[in-house]
């Protein structure tokens, strides 16, 4: 009887192997209706197959707010392209997966987009943490990888030639307009001490660690520097420590949630700095206001784009956005994702094809017209422009530096939060 059992097991092993083996042969192209990818609808009038563009985005998890904003930007771009007759006469169709803010899921998603969904073009996810591993996948298969939000130093220092960061400048230069403003203050108003409280994340570290030496060189003293893990929820002890040192200026290396967590804890701890800068968070126009209300007054951040900008194609983008999504203020991340679409579109039109090797070549040499202004890239995909500084004034975020984009004068020192 034992051998019977073993025969059974052999057959089970063989059968399950065969099931695994035969599955693709049985259903090579059928895509079930319930499949997760969110595809933007294509009008039926077009005969040719649509161009498939793949992305994995953090629609849930830690980066869900910016991730969802990026999705809006991508889909708006596809919609505008399709309404204008498509790309090379073909409709654009997005295949978007949710990676729940996990780098490993993002990697698996891009593998799947390339090998299973066989997309023609790829666009990047949100934030350096996800861009770094997924750009490796794209590179492995030779895909061009324009991306909206991965500009940390480590994104570029790996030397990948297929990656293009579609913001005006790499992230480590984000805080510089703000630093310049602080150092331009008259001696009496200029802060003497500062603290850096940052999440351990390639993006946030890139931003704040570029600001540190400039502030120190400008004569400020670093009173405190602390890093916390991305999943940290309790900022009370950290805030007590900051309040104890009471620095004039607080520099927060944050995504969204932790900027709110930090600020709330500072208010509870009774810490009132004269100036405050947070890398991301204040740059989300809707969510930041909802979370903090009047406490937002006077907080600084950096931004790559603003709604009122009159750069070529931006007014059209803004109008189309409000037509599609309503009156809510537009998040920077939507504009950055839209920029990615613009770069991809112009590269395809320049090369008149979908050959990724040619697209990569073109992206290295062309200058692209985008909502954040003209964009060009160096040999590792680093963009060649600069950021702007924004400040919350009267419940709204306004551009306060540099001069050419200024909407209002910066307010210093900030009001109590």
């Amino acid at each position, binding site marked *: 009887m034992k051998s019977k059992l073993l025969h059974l097991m052999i057959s089970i092993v063989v059968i399950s192997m065969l099931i695994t083996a035969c599955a*693709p042969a049985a259903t090579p192209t059928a895509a079930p209706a319930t499949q*997760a990818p969110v595809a933007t609808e294509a009008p039926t009038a077009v005969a040719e197959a649509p161009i498939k563009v793949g992305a994995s985005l953090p629609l849930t998890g830690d980066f869900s707010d910016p991730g969802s904003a990026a999705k809006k930007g991508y889909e708006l771009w596809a919609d505008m392209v399709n309404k204008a007759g498509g790309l090379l006469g073909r409709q654009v169709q997005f295949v978007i997966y949710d990676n729940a803010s996990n780098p490993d899921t993002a990697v698996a998603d891009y593998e799947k987009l390339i090998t299973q969904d066989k997309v023609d073009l790829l666009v990047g996810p949100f934030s350096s943490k996800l861009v770094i591993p997924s750009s490796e996948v794209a590179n492995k298969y030779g895909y061009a990888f324009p991306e909206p939000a991965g500009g940390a130093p480590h994104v570029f220092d790996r030397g990948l030639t297929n990656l293009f960061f579609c913001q005006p400048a790499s992230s480590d230069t984000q805080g510089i307009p703000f630093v310049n403003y602080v150092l331009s203050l008259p001696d009496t108003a200029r802060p003497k001490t500062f603290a850096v409280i940052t999440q351990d*994340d390639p993006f946030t570290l890139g931003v704040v660690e570029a600001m540190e030496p400039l502030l120190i060189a400008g004569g400020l003293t670093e009173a405190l520097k602390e890093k916390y893990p991305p999943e940290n929820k309790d900022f009370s002890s950290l805030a007590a420590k900051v309040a104890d040192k009471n620095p004039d200026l607080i520099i927060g290396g944050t995504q969204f949630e932790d900027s709110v967590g930090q600020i709330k804890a500072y208010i509870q701890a009774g810490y009132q700095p004269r100036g405050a800068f947070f890398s991301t968070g204040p740059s989300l126009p809707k969510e930041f206001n909802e979370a903090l209300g009047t406490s937002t007054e006077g907080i600084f951040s950096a931004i790559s784009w603003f709604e009122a900008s009159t750069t070529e194609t931006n007014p059209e983008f803004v109008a189309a956005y409000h037509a599609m999504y309503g009156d809510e203020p537009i998040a920077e991340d939507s504009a950055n994702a839209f920029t990615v679409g613009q770069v991809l579109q112009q590269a395809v039109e320049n090369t008149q094809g979908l050959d990724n090797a040619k697209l990569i070549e073109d992206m290295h040499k062309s200058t692209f017209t985008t909502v954040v202004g003209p964009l060009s890239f160096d040999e590792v995909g680093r963009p060649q422009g600069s950021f702007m500084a924004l400040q919350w004034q009267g419940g709204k975020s306004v551009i306060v530096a540099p001069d050419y984009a200024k909407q209002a004068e910066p307010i210093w020192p900030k009001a109590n939060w």
Partner: protein
Amino acid sequence: MAKTRIPTYALIAGLFVVGLISPWIVPNQYYQHIIVMTLMAAVMASSWNIIGGYAGYTSLGHAAFFGLGAYLVAWTNNHYGWHPFISSWFLALIVMVVAFIMGWIALRTQGSAFVVVTISIVFIFRLLALNLDNLTNGAQGMTQPRPGWGGVQWSPEMMKIPFVYIMLVLLCITIFVSWWIRHSKFGLGLIAIREDEGKAESVGIDTMLYKVLAFGISAYFVAVAGGIYSYFLTYIDPGFLFDILTSVTMVLIAILGGRGTLWGPVLGAFIMQPLANWVIGQFGGTQIHLTVFGGILLLVMLFMPQGILPTITDFLQRRAKARAASSAV
């Protein structure tokens, strides 16, 4: 006993041959990816089975050894250029020594307390990986060069095939070792510990030594798998590698197939892994996946705590007995 020996070899050989040709039957890379993952799941569950099945100690700490193997391999590859296909086997020995030490501490407890202490092993290693960032690059994770051999990178179309083969070799070795342990005095000792540890001690088994040895050996193959996996993905990060869910997956697979049996964990992996991929493919995201995964675990624990293989064995034995009884009459 003699009867079972030949079929075990035959089974391993059969598995090997099927595995050998599988990438050529399935040229689609996505399915090759699933084959690699399935083979790896079978390795991990079979390896876990040595302590969890034979000795009956439910360890949820094995994700720590998986992650440690992965980090050692990634680090030595980046710094010394050691090829993961070779270094995995040696570096896993270091992990085994770590597991001996961890086991020596953790195996003083039993039952629920053992489960809890092994969970904490995973958390401790995860925090270390996050904090020792001059070694591990912290929360940012670590990347490795694209897979290749001797300076030549494997072409994207062929990339998965070497991984299918090395996982296959690893699986065959794991099954062989597991089989060998089961039929040795050592294995009998482990099973005696599972049945009644006090009694095992009273008949002169050095239970602590046996348990620690089993714990270390079962960590070894998990660590080799971790090393190869880190190269397969070329990207690792602490939150993902030191994940308690990785441990639970091993346990679920082993229990589903038949805890304490030789082929149960393999069978469990061949069912669970493709299923998991199908669920993710169908519903996307991680939320429904979690629900399905937890639901299966719950149902198995409540209604089939023995697992599939022993249930089938029982059924066949009962039928054979009934037949024997009727023919005797």
